[in-house]
């Protein structure tokens, strides 16, 4: 594992008076795919939103490429090269596929060591997601769940991110698309992209993730490599299976 790109220390978050996250500590290394796993309501999405600056009540340190982003606003965080694809996709329904991609567009970016980050264009994204290439002018609101899921990932990639927070990409899409999505993530990893993935589905996570943190009630209960989790039926039963 190379040096950490994203480091989270003592992260807590609240919705009103309700505390959701308790003192989380974890990191994502460069080029790594790390999965946050846990059942519904474990705090996976909240963790991602908190990192992204979308939950106002938060505490703790979040460092991205050495910059403290814990008090930054979402657009500033995005401009540092941290991409976010929300679980509910949040496609702009009144905009076409191409227009949705345009909203996500950001200038080319470099890693701190000077190597250029992968540069994404609609053409390259259409090659990655052939389904989208068939409907460049379709309105976001007229797309299937799987197509929207691809579009939300593609829209985030248009910002040429260094690390992507990928919230439940397998949720509510057809099995065939889930497989495609896993293949895409492996593909993206090869380009040097780091990914923090949230996932309930261990079969999906096994296909893509290097390491895993298991969340339950807003706390990390287990951490290790994907292979270790795959062998550890006890942890799976305690925190993952329904």
């Amino acid at each position, binding site marked *: 594992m190379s040096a950490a790109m994203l480091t989270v220390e003592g992260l807590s978050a609240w919705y009103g008076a309700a505390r959701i996250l308790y003192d989380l500590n974890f990191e994502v290394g460069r080029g790594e795919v790390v999965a946050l796993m846990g059942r519904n309501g474990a705090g996976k999405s909240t963790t991602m939103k908190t990192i992204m600056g979308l939950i106002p009540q938060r505490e703790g340190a979040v460092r991205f490429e050495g910059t403290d982003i814990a008090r930054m606003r979402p657009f500033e965080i995005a401009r540092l090269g941290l991409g976010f694809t929300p679980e509910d996709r949040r496609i702009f329904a009144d905009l076409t596929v191409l227009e949705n991609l345009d*909203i996500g567009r950001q200038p080319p970016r470099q890693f701190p060591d000077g190597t250029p980050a992968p540069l994404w264009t609609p053409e390259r994204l259409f090659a990655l997601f052939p389904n989208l290439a068939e409907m460049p002018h379709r309105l976001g609101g007229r797309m299937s769940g799987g197509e929207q899921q691809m579009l939300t990932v593609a829209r985030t990639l248009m910002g040429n991110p260094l690390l992507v927070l990928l919230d439940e990409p397998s949720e509510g899409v057809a099995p065939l698309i889930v497989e495609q999505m896993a293949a895409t993530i492996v593909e993206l990893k090869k380009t040097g992209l780091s990914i923090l993935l949230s996932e309930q589905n261990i079969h999906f996570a096994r296909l893509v993730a290097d390491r895993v943190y298991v969340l339950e009630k807003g706390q990390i209960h287990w951490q290790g490599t994907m292979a270790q989790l795959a062998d550890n039926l006890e942890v799976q039963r305690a925190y993952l299976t329904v």
Partner: protein
Amino acid sequence: MTLDSLLFQAINGLSSASGLFFIAVGLSLIFGVTRIINLAHGSLYMMGTYIAYSFATKIGGVIGFWGGILATAIIVGCIGALIEILLLRRIYRAPELFQLLATFALVLVFNDMTHWIWGSEDLLGPRAPGLAGSVELLGRRLPSYDLFLALAGPVVLLILHFTLKLTRFGRLIRAATQDREMVGALGVNQAVLFTSVFALGAALAGLGGALQVAREPATLATDLIALGDAFVVVVVGGMGSITGAYLAAVIIAEVKALCIGIGVVNLGGISVNFSKFTLVAEFLVMAIVLIVRPYGLLGKPQGAVRSIAEPEEPIRAATPMLKLLAAVVLGLLLFLPVLAQSSPYLMILGIDVLIAVIFATSLHFIMGPGGMHSFGHAAYFGLGAYGAALLVKWLAVPMGFALAAAPLVALAGALLFGWFAVRLSGVYLAMLTLAFAQIVWAAVFQWEGFTGGSNGVIGVWPKPPFNQGWAFFLLTLALATVAVLVLRRVLFAPFGYAMRAGRDSPLRAEAIGIDVKRIHWLAFAIAGCICGVAGGLFAFAKGSISPESIHVGRSIDGLVMVLLGGIQTLTGPIVGASVFALLQDTIMRQTEYWRALLGAVILVLVLAFPSGIVGAFSNLWRRWRGAS
């Protein structure tokens, strides 16, 4: 009337439609992206006319006129940007109501500022160089400037349409209208986007106002009239749709033009003057559209708004201490007439305060626990006041009868308007209630034969013994106490629970069998009815009633009272009304520019005490108790 004159009026209507469109479209764009209803939009329009007037008269000529119009649009756009940067940016996370109040404070400030700069006289600009003449159309002469205006609307519509469609700025506006948080998470600086959208909307309003300079005089009353019209257009056309805004502007302007065109007609022996029905016609168009399409002709239902404000605190029954305090205050008030023997003015002030208390408490009833932010509560005050005064004037009924009739008249109005209002929520409801209040005001103002027009109704004096200050004070005190107790009782009855359930979660409330619309409609009617009591008392207390005292300013006074006291407590409106009435009496009379002062007070309030006076005190109290 001939087909020719109809066509002539139709073109006239199109040129009015352009003006309506310019102001409504800016309002709509700004709301779409920032979720703020800019009540100061009418003021920007008004200032547009004044600024263009100065350019056209001070510089003059082609440059002064046409260049002035462009410069005006830019200047007003800059004013808009300043408003966004200095004020709105601080309150995007505040409750909707505070945002509305803050922009209304700007209305007050801008009106006095305009008054201070340009004076109170109406100012008519010069004719447009190059378009001063007229063209002959179907044997009639049509001012060429009107024709130009009629074309300006569609041209701007097309430019806006293609800007939204083809530029990145336009795409960002459309995306942010749908999900601004996501736009931010994709790396777009919302602050810049919001400022530029606000500037664009303001520039359009300024342009619209400036273009009127050769057609209509600049007057200080334009701000609220333009705002009311723009609301009707936006509600009819559908929020966020620029084509809808133009369509609605055309429909409303044409209906009005038609009414004027028809003029006086003999219907079965009765001559009816249709040109007096322009406001009624506007109302009818809006009513029909809202019944058929609640979100306007081309609007879409508002998606569930991601609530960022804190949830409302539950209301609590009065503690024994508070009850004791209330009893003591009531006892003191009963003795006030004894104290007042040396200063009779104390009674007048006391009556004013108590009327304000009834007014504010009834408004709070639908605003706080009902969640319906009415910006037109003055309508029911006016219906009560005029109901009582007109019964005295035309039928010479006794005071008791007139006072009893006041709430019934208000109730009837509240039942009618409320039926439409509860179909909408949030800012749509606020706009609709404001439009209704404008209509009541305008009806009173226009229907001179019945209501006395701008002179109002005079000679509505109470009969003995109530012509004595102390007796009328005690009567007002009794009615105010009953009103407050009745409203409290209703709030702690199952009806009150159902009302709050409907506010907090309409879907869940319906799922357990509550007819939310019906409950809210009845609540709206109850509030209107009680408010009518305040109106009736007011008419007798002053001995007269005029359109001025039921104008939109009174609705806003009510909102300020409620917010001053704090919306989440039941004592809030009582304290807020008392403080406001006393403040108005002491400070506001000291200066000619009391509007600007009031506006400044509201701005300070909104920025400094987001939970009102009572809220701030109870927070302090809780902290103190928590510490000890």
